[in-house]
């Protein structure tokens, strides 16, 4: 349907082009400025986009008194790096990081394995009910968590997972988006290699592991970073399932609580916030192309 048309359109886009390396429109025009007039739009835009982060960074290096000042002190003079260790001491941030890491790592790994298996079956095998099952899976993409929050909560509760990290892990072990994305990708791979291996007597699993997976590194990396982002940043689901156990707080949950407790201690709060964002930002800078590709493909999810 329409979503697929857009999907195809997006699929054809080279991620290098999205990052601004190749193939962009360039028009030769008479210059009325020593630089492209687009800078007049883009520079203020970039400033507006970056200001919230820079302002957070500045506040995280100020004293509390400096943050309580109007007009604001734009540069503190001496930088107070103590805010960072102080923030780590003020709350159990280590535990939050560890919990978030455990949940995210498990969910990402499990998705890579389970989605690959399912996607390979959907892409290459014909088995009883495969089309119907695939359609049914896709249909669940239409239903966002917000509207099935209560029944999903009740299921997780009946499994006895409330207040455990398992509540954050188990329901997310296999994501339909991942299955869909990998199925689409596997279908684009040339089938001849696999056929040759079949004739040589390789099993389906052997083909998947030895031939298909190595060819799919970019798609798997894309799935991994997108899933990482979803899990690392998730707030609503931890909020409803981790109720009475601070030992199972994730970073987002802990931060929200930290904000409530240290509302007026701006420099401490901002230091905590900078630290919470760092892993995600580093990953983004390292794997920007996969994020961009993943978001462009997410267009299919609607």
């Amino acid at each position, binding site marked *: 349907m329409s979503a697929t048309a857009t999907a195809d359109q997006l699929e054809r886009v080279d991620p290098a082009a*999205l990052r601004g390396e190749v193939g962009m429109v360039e028009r030769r025009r008479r210059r009325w400025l020593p*630089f492209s007039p687009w*800078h007049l739009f883009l520079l203020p835009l970039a400033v507006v986009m970056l200001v919230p982060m820079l302002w957070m960074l500045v506040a995280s290096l100020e004293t509390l008194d400096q943050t309580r000042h109007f007009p604001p002190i734009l540069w503190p003079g001496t930088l107070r790096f103590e805010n960072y260790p102080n923030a780590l001491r003020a709350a159990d941030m280590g535990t939050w990081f560890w919990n978030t890491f455990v949940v995210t790592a498990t969910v990402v790994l499990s998705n890579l394995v389970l989605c690959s298996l399912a996607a390979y079956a959907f892409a290459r095998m014909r088995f009883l009910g495969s089309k119907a099952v695939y359609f049914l899976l896709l249909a669940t993409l239409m239903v966002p968590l917000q509207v099935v929050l209560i029944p999903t909560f009740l299921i997780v509760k009946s499994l006895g997972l409330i207040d455990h990290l398992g509540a954050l892990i188990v329901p997310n072990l296999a994501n339909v988006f991942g299955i869909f994305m990998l199925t689409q990708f596997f279908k684009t791979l040339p089938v001849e290699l696999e056929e040759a291996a079949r004739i040589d007597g390789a099993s389906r699993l052997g083909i998947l592991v030895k031939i298909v997976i190595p060819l799919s590194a970019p798609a798997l990396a894309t799935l991994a970073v997108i899933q990482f982002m979803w899990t*690392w940043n998730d707030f609503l689901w931890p909020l409803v399932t981790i109720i009475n156990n601070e030992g199972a707080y994730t970073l987002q949950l802990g931060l929200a609580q930290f904000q409530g407790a240290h509302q007026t201690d701006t420099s401490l709060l901002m230091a905590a916030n900078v630290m919470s964002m760092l892993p995600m930002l580093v*990953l983004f800078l390292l794997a920007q192309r996969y994020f961009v590709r993943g978001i462009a493909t997410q267009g299919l999810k609607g």
Partner: protein
Amino acid sequence: MERVRRALTSDHAIGWVFVAPSVLLVAIFGLYPILSGLWLSFQKASLLSPVREFAGLENYRAIMDDPRLKQAAINTIYYTVLFVPISILGALAIAIALNRRIRFIRFYRLAVFIPVVTSTIATGIMFLWLLDSTYGLANWALGGIGLGPFGFFERPSQAMPSLVAMTIWGWLGFDTIIYLAALQGIPQELSEAAAIDGAGRWSTFRNVTWPLVGPATLLLVVWSTLSALQLFDEVFFVTKGGPLGRTSVVVFYVYRLAFEQGLAIPLAGYAAAIAYVLFLVVLALALVQFWMGNRMVHYSS
């Protein structure tokens, strides 16, 4: 024996083995909640007590005369009407600007994309500080050009527009990436041909670019509307529905009913009914948008 062996090695068996874990998980956590939620919406139930009572259509009838739900619905629509067009048109303008080979373009793109990976909580903390009514940088900067001072999240009339501004900051990069992908799918010959035919910038945009990014626009309209109608995290964390209930949106109201008041009082069934109605509205709206969009949008190739 031979037949058994063939059945076991055929794609029927191995296919199901491959999909079984995923299908099982999705069935339990994706499909089953949809049905059990429907069942729950016909009951009087609380989240923590096992006692349930069949209530027929009572929950659905209650939706009609719930003034606070009505307020939440109005707030949700207000948010959606502001958020969807501003974010999409803004993203298109930005994507067009970012779609050139000029100096610093990678820096500009990075600046627009970075908020996409920032969590709602981190964004909320940054904006609560930026838009602080007493010490905020925003009031200082706006004061410099003679505007304000604003109360932002603290003033009933400004809270929702402030939320819109904050969420647009977080979403722009996402929409922009989708638009950039669509723009780069446009064959360069087309805009060159338009230029040779003497079309100006506006005319090229109107007759070449806009129709060709049509599918992306449709997708973003549907998707942004979906997510705008389900706004929750930002409201929960930043405004708590206030001031004076002016930012209480539907999902936030449902959350409060079920997970705050409904833990003891049997309101979970009612909350599930509201969620179900929201689901149907969202689904119907998406279908209408796709149906209308498909009649207007031109698909190339």
